[in-house]
């Protein structure tokens, strides 16, 4: 077969004044056959996008050449359309005008026909007259793909086209792109950092090395599509790609260091790093099951923290570790529902919680907690369940060796273990060490919060519920959480850069925000602060991997999302539960440890992603989101998610359906 694209010894150097030029690409060479789908993966910043710019004709290589059908590329060409990482569609043109942009030579009728056809193909019929700013990120990306296809190119260059989309949209876009590819049979060259994406889509995956990039590995995947990522051939391809990137993935028998294999016997089977809720709950599970473990606590008490409100699904966890009685003793305020207020408080929506019988939860309430006290009680509970707790232990490094895991502690002897559970919270110890932590640019919020006396909590029936007061400024809202009979926690969350300017201070910002919402202003009229306000960054992030050979990450160390739905302790508690399960399974059946850990990774990631996407859906248009809650056919599913039922595949599907539902509501309001 002749090659459609030949990349021949392409190098790119960027000149720097007064310094050596930076070499970004180093003699990169490969070919792509007509109709073939090739994915390029590589570590962040390795030059993947630069390579695609060169192939697309936007950038001249310093040496080497790109040829398409034998002809050297001298610039961009309408036969080969580039789809940009951030939306490249024109915001000043309507959807239809954008799709018709490349069709200036076609007749008016022909253009209209093509526009209609391609909008239908990408599922955007009905949005012809909308403007890009009215669309979601996924929809904008669809418009761009429609625009590219309408120009009838032979080749599509896609530069991380789905990187800015949320998880579910990304999945949907992948399968749509596959469907379109089968209908249109273009040659596709796709750059991505998502290995699963590459494995699911490509005929061949090219793995680039770190900068200066060269092709380090080529993995051919001869499997019919659509592909199920859990099928063994896909897993094998995934491992091959990971191996090509120099990340050893856990496989089979090597998943955890064996008990007797180390030159020195391990100090314990499991080391739990961190004494926050995730660590304490995991330790309680392990203690209850008689697993030999140590919990290392940095001991910074009391902790002032966002996350003072729990969700219903955690009740099962507290019941299982025998902590529910402690919570029921009356020290913590029962949380029986949530109230959302919109439009200065003129619109109000109450969501009374329900029992969750399928989780074995009979009670219809959860709790608001003073986090200092709560964390302390949980840690004490772990100790009572048989955890060895080593206080004042700050972990400096975790060494993931071949035959043992070593946990280095500042000023103390290093501990050897078989499994380390990273529950280090937002310090994300392993996430930083392994460089798997990724900030989510869409959710970079800050929170300014404090405790107050004399807050009017509103009507008696809902006084003890959590109140979420939504501001008119995009992505800004306030929480009102009762801590005890007198004290109420109030916090303002807003977008990092827009809220607190450099010339601003927390008090001024807080006061200004309160008066911008008249209901909240009235409730805070007689409020008296108990201590100064805390300002806390609330940048959402996730870890690309939640488990590997001899380690797993849980709680905030795995993922942190915006606090609007009180998901923080949910992720902590549930991931601890899944981690305990995975650890016990791995210890009792070491040959299949990798599978147990992979399952852990998948489950916890799914829950975290569902939370995040639920939050993004809320932020996109809070009135539409609350409209879903008022919709009889959407409410049960949404309530179940909001009560913390997020970890099953069915939950992710339910959310996808709600997103479609929201889209319909929005489409109806667009007219």
């Amino acid at each position, binding site marked *: 077969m002749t090659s459609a694209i030949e990349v021949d010894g392409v190098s790119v150097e960027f000149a720097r004044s007064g310094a050596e030029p930076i070499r970004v690409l180093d003699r990169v060479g490969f070919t792509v056959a007509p109709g073939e789908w090739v994915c390029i993966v590589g570590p962040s910043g390795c030059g993947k996008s630069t390579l695609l710019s060169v192939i697309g004709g936007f950038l001249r290589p310093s040496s080497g050449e790109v040829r398409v059908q034998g002809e050297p590329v001298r610039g*961009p060409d309408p036969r080969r359309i580039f789809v940009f990482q951030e939306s490249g569609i024109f915001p000043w043109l309507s959807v239809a005008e954008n799709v018709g942009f490349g069709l200036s030579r076609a007749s008016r009728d022909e253009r209209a026909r093509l526009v209609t056809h391609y909008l239908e193909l990408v599922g955007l019929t009905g949005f012809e007259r909308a403007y890009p700013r009215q669309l979601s990120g996924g929809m904008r990306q669809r418009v761009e793909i429609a625009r590219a296809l309408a120009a009838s190119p032979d080749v599509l260059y896609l530069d991380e086209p789905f990187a800015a989309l949320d998880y579910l949209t990304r999945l949907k876009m992948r399968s749509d792109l596959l469907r379109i590819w089968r209908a249109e049979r273009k040659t596709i060259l796709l750059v991505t950092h998502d290995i699963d994406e590459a494995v699911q889509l490509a005929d061949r995956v090219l793995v680039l090395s770190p900068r200066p990039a060269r092709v380090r590995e080529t993995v051919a995947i001869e499997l019919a599509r659509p592909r199920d990522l859990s099928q063994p051939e896909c897993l094998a391809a995934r491992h091959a790609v990971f191996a090509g990137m120099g990340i050893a993935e856990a496989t089979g028998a090597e998943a955890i260091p064996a008990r007797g294999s180390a030159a020195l016997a391990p100090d314990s089977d499991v080391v739990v790093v961190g004494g926050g809720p995730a660590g304490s709950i995991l330790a309680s599970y392990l203690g209850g099951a008689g697993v030999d473990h140590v919990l290392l606590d940095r001991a910074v008490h009391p902790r002032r923290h966002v996350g003072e409100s729990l969700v219903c699904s955690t009740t099962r966890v507290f019941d299982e570790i025998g902590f529910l009685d402690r919570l029921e003793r009356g020290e913590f305020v029962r949380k029986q529902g949530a109230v959302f207020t919109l439009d200065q408080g003129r619109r109000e929506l109450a969501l009374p919680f329900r029992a969750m019988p399928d989780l074995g939860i009979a009670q219809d309430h959860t709790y608001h907690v003073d986090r200092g006290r709560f964390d302390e009680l949980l840690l004490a509970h772990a100790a009572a369940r048989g955890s060895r707790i080593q206080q004042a232990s700050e972990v400096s490094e975790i060494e993931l060796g071949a035959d043992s895991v070593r946990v280095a502690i500042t000023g103390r002897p290093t501990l050897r273990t078989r499994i380390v559970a990273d529950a280090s919270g937002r310090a994300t110890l392993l996430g930083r060490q392994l460089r798997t932590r990724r900030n989510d640019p869409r959710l970079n919020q800050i929170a300014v919060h404090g405790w107050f006396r004399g807050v009017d909590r509103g009507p008696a029936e809902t006084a003890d519920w959590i109140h979420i007061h939504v501001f008119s400024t995009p992505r800004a809202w306030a929480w009102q959480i009762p801590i005890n009979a007198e004290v109420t926690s109030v916090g303002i969350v807003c977008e990092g850069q827009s809220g607190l300017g450099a010339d601003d201070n927390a008090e001024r910002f807080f006061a200004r925000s309160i008066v911008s919402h008249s209901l909240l202003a009235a409730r805070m009229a007689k409020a008296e602060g108990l201590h100064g306000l805390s300002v806390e960054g609330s940048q959402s992030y996730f870890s690309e991997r939640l488990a590997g050979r001899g380690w797993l990450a849980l709680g905030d160390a795995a993922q942190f999302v915006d606090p609007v739905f009180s998901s923080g302790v949910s992720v902590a508690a549930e991931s601890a539960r899944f981690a305990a399960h995975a650890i016990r399974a791995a210890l009792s059946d070491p040959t299949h440890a990798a599978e147990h850990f992979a399952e852990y990774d998948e489950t916890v990631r799914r829950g975290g992603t569902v939370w995040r996407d639920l939050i993004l859906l809320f932020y996109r248009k809070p009135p539409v989101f609350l409209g879903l809650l008022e919709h009889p056919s959407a409410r049960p599913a949404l309530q179940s998610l909001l009560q913390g039922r997020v970890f099953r595949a069915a939950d992710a599907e339910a959310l996808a359906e709600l997103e479609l539902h929201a889209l319909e509501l929005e489409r109806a309001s667009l007219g």
Partner: protein
Amino acid sequence: MGRWKQVLPSLIALAALVALWWALVALTGSAIFPTPWQVLTGAAELAASGMLAQHIFASLLRVAIGFSLALLFAVPLGLWMGRVSAAYTTLNPIFQILRPISPIAWIPIAILWFGVGNASPIYLIFISSVFPMIVQTTAGVHTIEERYLRAAENFGVSRWALLRQVVFPAALPQILVGMRIGLGVAWLVVVAAEMIALHSGLGYLIIDSRNAGNRYDLVIAGMILIGLIGLLLDGAMRRLERMESVRWRFVEHG
């Protein structure tokens, strides 16, 4: 209701200012400085005679002509400077030198070149509003996201289509900002220009009222009108920023 709540405090402040003015005039017993009521009746008298409308019309016409000429000159030039870097590096320093010179400083030269008729103030308006519009248009082109230009280039559109469908609309929000600044300066300048040897316009009204018999009631009436009309012009320009084809730049996504 919400709007009223916003406007109410400034209305109260305004009323307080007028009351203070009235009280001060009454307290000092000034014979020359008018009370608000005198300003109102003076203006009503002038309006009834039809003179007021003539003055307003004359000022607006000068601004319309001077500003339109500046717009026709500045936008193509700004687009060219934005696209062609040689044009930018050659012309930009010159404009940077000319720009900080107050339009008032041009008055002697304007009179020398154009005499004391309508052409002088029109020239001054042109000079005052052309620079901000050139600068903003150029900046508008310079800040176009690279990916939009690349995308357009990728589809192989002609240079003309690139200009019309991508460069101009992408820079349009900035051009509008330039127009708003330009119009504001033009309105400032027309009044100053009309104070020199003309026989119509709001600037002339002010100077003439003082010279011909210390009619300070008309001086102040003229000043207030200038303020109000300036506000209206700015409001009109702001409305342009809400057009669908430029809102993307002024409104948040979502």
